[in-house]
């Protein structure tokens, strides 16, 4: 998907500056204006001041709330109330974090981690063999099932929460982490199958044939060919599932109740009730809840980005 796309630079229109790919490496034969002018003129031609200004404006729109989130979490409550919402944290304190971590927050964190890890394993375990069968199998049911999944991509989870609530209560899984995991996995499956299918299509058929000549069956192929060669796809899917499961709100909202089974997103909501007058503590809890994803983002940005748009990035 996105990772695979050639990073072919483009000359963009009114919005984009004119930094062409490799503009500094090769001469520019297609320039109409001879590249003689002063360096200022050159610079003006290559950059687009309007676009840069727009980007900076957007930086304020995105950055200001994030600045608020982090700085307020580092300030005392009194400081927040007197010095105003945007004052810099002149004497930063970690007291808010300490306070949040001594509460129930750790429990929510662990619950969320369980939901996330189990969802990743379950989605991969279900989607990889399915993708392998879709790419290599010939049974007519496979095609029907694949079409069902592609159409299923359009089912909005909000619209089916009532029957899912019915199913989960009937399975006696209401108010359990398993109850959250079951529908979460289902709604992440279509994209996972889609991504893995397109990854597996790139394995040349000759490889399977060579393996078969050596007497290997499908199990052998899955282990020695599919698993190692589909790694980029597997990572993309894992990231996609991880972010979605970590941030999931709808299923925990409808399917859990007790504090023991609370995940982070629900926990934040309950903390908001608890800390109505303590905004810094709430911001600390929110920062903590976003931190794992942010750390992950800092390490493997490209993987994360391709995982987030998995299935749609084309």
């Amino acid at each position, binding site marked *: 998907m996105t990772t695979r796309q050639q990073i072919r630079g483009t000359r963009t229109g009114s*919005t984009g500056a004119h930094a062409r790919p490799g503009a500094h490496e090769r001469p520019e034969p*297609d320039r109409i204006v001879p590249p003689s002018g002063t360096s200022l003129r050159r610079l003006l031609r290559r950059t687009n001041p309007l676009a840069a200004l727009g*980007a900076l404006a957007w930086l304020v729109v995105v950055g200001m709330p994030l600045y608020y989130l982090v700085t307020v979490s580092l300030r005392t409550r009194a400081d927040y109330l007197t010095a105003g919402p945007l004052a810099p944290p002149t004497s930063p304190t970690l007291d808010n974090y300490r306070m949040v971590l001594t509460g129930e927050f750790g429990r929510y964190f662990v619950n969320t981690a369980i939901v996330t890890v189990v969802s990743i394993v379950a989605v991969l375990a*279900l989607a990889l063999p399915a993708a392998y069968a879709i790419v290599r199998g010939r049974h007519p049911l496979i095609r029907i099932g694949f079409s069902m999944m592609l159409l*299923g991509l359009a089912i909005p989870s909000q619209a*089916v929460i009532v029957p899912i609530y019915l199913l989960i209560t009937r399975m006696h899984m209401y108010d359990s982490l398993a109850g959250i995991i079951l529908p979460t996995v289902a709604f992440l499956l279509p994209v996972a199958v889609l991504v893995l299918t397109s990854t597996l299509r790139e394995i040349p058929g000759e490889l399977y044939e060579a393996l*078969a000549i050596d007497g290997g069956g*499908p199990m052998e192929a899955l282990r020695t060919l599919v698993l190692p060669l589909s790694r980029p796809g597997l990572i993309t899917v894992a990231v996609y599932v991880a972010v979605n499961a970590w941030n999931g709100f709808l299923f925990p909202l409808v399917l859990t109740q007790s504090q023991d089974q609370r995940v982070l997103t629900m926990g934040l909501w309950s903390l908001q009730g608890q800390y109505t007058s303590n905004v810094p503590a709430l911001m600390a809890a929110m920062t903590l809840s976003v931190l794992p994803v*942010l750390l992950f983002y800092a390490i493997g940005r490209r993987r994360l980005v391709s995982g987030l748009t998995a299935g749609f*990035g084309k």
Partner: protein
Amino acid sequence: MKVRAAQGAGPARAGRTRDRSSVHQRPGVIWALPAFAYFLVFAVVPLILVVGLSFTHWSGLGTPRWAGAANWSRLTEDATLGSSIKLSLILTTVAWLVQTPLSLLLGVWAAAPGRGRAVLSAVFFVPLLMSNAAVALLWQSLLDPNFGLAELIGPLLGASDGNILGDPDRALAAMALVVSWQFIPFHMLLYQAATRQIPQSLYEAAAIDGAGRVRQFFAITLPQLRHTIVSSSVLIVVGSLTYFETILLITEGGPGTATRVLPLHMYITGFQAFEMGYASALAVLLVVAGTALSIGIVRMTGYWRMDSSREGM
């Protein structure tokens, strides 16, 4: 359950002649069955069940009781329904109008190479990493009239007194903006990826013809992005039509029912008033509206006909 290769290789398909020469085993349907069955049970069956449940009375406890068409005739009497449909349409329209131009421009901007762009885009994607709960609570705090930034943001929404969430119209506008803030990064990513796929040769040819930056954008970039515009629009429309989590967290549909959009009306009916049967009828309405709108957009824009717009390049 192993399906032999010979089975599928009978009438040699074009380009698949190599199948015939080999005798390797192909994976049978059993390999895909767990995923298909799982998806069937937890996604497809609920979609069918929701239609069935719309003909029942059910409080969430006990067994659903048959109700005939009672829920469906109730749709016509529900005073809140009309307003929630209207609110949903407004929210969807505003969300589309805000998100499409901004994410397109940002995506095109981010597609060009350059260190500054890469760093800024990295920051721009951060809202995408946050949960609904985090986004909602952050904005609720920001929009707080007493301690937040309401005094700063208020004037932008025509509320110089900072009373945003307490005013019906402004609250809805604020919801549209929060939802846009949350989802613009996703659509920006779609546009960024699509822009990078535009053949460089098109721009080179345009430059030779003397087309400037603005001309190039309208003559090349925009037409080349039309597929992405359509798919992003479908995602925005269906998304904002069915999405309610952030609104539930920030306003719970208030003040009054000023931000009680259709999916939120469904949620409150089902899980706060415990009228799951009627909530199911509302859910069916949602699915039908979403499907109709997305098919409508695709038809209107002639999406399928332009499928091969770039073939042969």
